[in-house]
């Protein structure tokens, strides 16, 4: 088995066993920090241990029992859901406009919608902080959702553009020639066929907002402090095992979202 050629150039598995070991080590490096926190969060002692000597749900209790953590979770979820709605709507509209237009206007618009991905986050954060201070948007949900929507737009636009690239626009023209108005043709003919791309854009938008730290550090605060902001302060100042419980819950959420995006992509490929 090990002496069978593994590549087109007749290298055997045995000859490149070092490659398998190296890749296995890198995989371990990548995955261990994502998983190690989960068993530790069930520790029954006052400190984090691995493996835990006794098991308990005390840190989950501490998380759910704290009104501060609960409020922050609620703020983050609300901001992420609102961001998903706005970014998905605006991003889908923009992607449709960009894909139908041509020439300089189209590539200019494309460039503008990619900007939020290219500009260093810290610059967006202090810029927003400064302008929001002038108009009283710091510490508000409106301000946070506006900033997060902008961050999420590129992901939605990219996802929907790729969906539209494999869609035959003539179908919409047929619908129009049969008497459907333009918006009605889009909603009933185009949208159902690109829905998987739109949904995967929405998923990105949600994650972008929910996981965002830097902007939240600057412009969210007081009653509207996000979960990430509270976690950042907590991690910086002390190692509070409550954060291990929250982290485990967040890892669970990423796994769900990962499976979701995988299913979406799988269905897209099969189309």
């Amino acid at each position, binding site marked *: 088995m090990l002496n069978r050629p593994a590549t087109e150039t007749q290298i055997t598995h045995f000859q490149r066993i070092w490659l398998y070991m190296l890749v296995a080590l890198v995989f371990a490096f990548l995955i261990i920090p*994502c998983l190690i926190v989960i068993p530790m969060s069930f520790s029954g002692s006052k400190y984090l241990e691995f493996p835990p000597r006794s098991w308990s749900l005390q840190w989950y209790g501490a998380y759910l029992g704290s009104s501060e953590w609960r409020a922050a979770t609620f703020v983050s979820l609300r901001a992420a859901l609102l961001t998903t709605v706005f970014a998905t709507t605006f991003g889908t509209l923009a992607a449709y406009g960009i894909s139908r237009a041509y020439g300089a206007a189209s590539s200019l*618009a494309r460039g*503008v919608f990619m900007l939020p991905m290219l500009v260093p986050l810290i610059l967006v954060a202090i810029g*927003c902080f*400064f302008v929001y201070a002038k108009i009283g948007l710091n510490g508000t949900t409106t301000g946070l959702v*506006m900033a997060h929507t*902008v961050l999420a737009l590129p992901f939605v636009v990219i996802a929907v553009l790729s969906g539209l690239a494999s869609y035959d626009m003539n179908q919409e023209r047929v619908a129009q020639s049969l008497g459907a108005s333009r918006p009605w043709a889009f909603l009933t003919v185009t949208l159902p066929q690109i829905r998987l791309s739109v949904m995967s854009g929405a998923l990105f938008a949600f994650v972008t907002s929910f996981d965002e730290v830097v902007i939240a550090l600057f412009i969210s605060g007081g009653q509207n402090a996000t979960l990430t902001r509270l976690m950042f302060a907590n991690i910086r100042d002390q190692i509070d095992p409550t954060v291990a419980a929250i982290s485990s819950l967040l890892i669970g959420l990423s796994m769900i979202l990962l499976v979701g995006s995988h299913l979406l992509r799988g269905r897209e490929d099969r189309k």
Partner: protein
Amino acid sequence: MTMVLNHPGIADAEPNADALKRRGSRERRALASLTLPGAILIFLVLILPIGWLFWLSFFGPSGEATLENYARMLKPIYVRTFISTFEVAGLVTLVCVLLGYPVAYLLSQLSERTAGLLMIFVVLPFWTSVLVRTYAWLVLLQRTGLVNTWLIDAGVISTPLPLVHNMLGTVIGMVHVMLPFLILPLYASMRAIDPVYMRAAANCGATPSQAFRQVFLPMSLPGLTAGIALVFVLCLGFFVTPALLGGGRVAMWAMQIANNISVYGNWGAASALGVVLLVVTAIILYAFKRLFRVDTFEGVR
């Protein structure tokens, strides 16, 4: 006889062309208006504030017009920050290439199914919050953390190693965050290399390492350079992980900007630093785009 003269195409040509043109420009306006909600938001949250900061960077703390904010960057403390930022970014990028290239290579040689399954190791960290992963590294690497405990229990060391709150911890944490950004575009470009080229090279008498160096490596370069540009640029402006794992000992550009505001309240200085960071980022991305014709940011996720 009159039928010929009244041929519709000839008589109506002029007004019809006008109507088509009007319809065309109406269509363009309609399409442009679709991008408006998003574009206005980008203007309000991104372009206007950054333009304002740019303007602000030319004024001193008491409101007088000055180039002091840019001149200050030549002071040793700022120069040290720039150097250490570039050092960290360069080191992280190098480690990512050394670790990421073999992974992307092996994955690209496996069947799509197996590779897709193993991709979980790359994609799960990618979908996990940076904050959560940074916290996990802190738990692993701190003085009383898992790694030190294990090493002491195994008798390898007697006193805990300083693994975090320094350069080492920062680089480890940043490599963990950046590695997927290198592997994903690299894997995509390697997947596109037809295995027939390697077989042809072998048939023509190339040794395996010759075939790899002269055929596979050059063909994987576009993906590699795209990954390198992306990782390096993201490192330059990275805030969260250095702030938490550096323990104040690793001066990074983004932290300097944040400190200028939260500690000193000096908007001019922070703005100037931010503007220079933006310009450097843009230059690097533009240079990579021109030199290697790569679209760094398209389709990473």
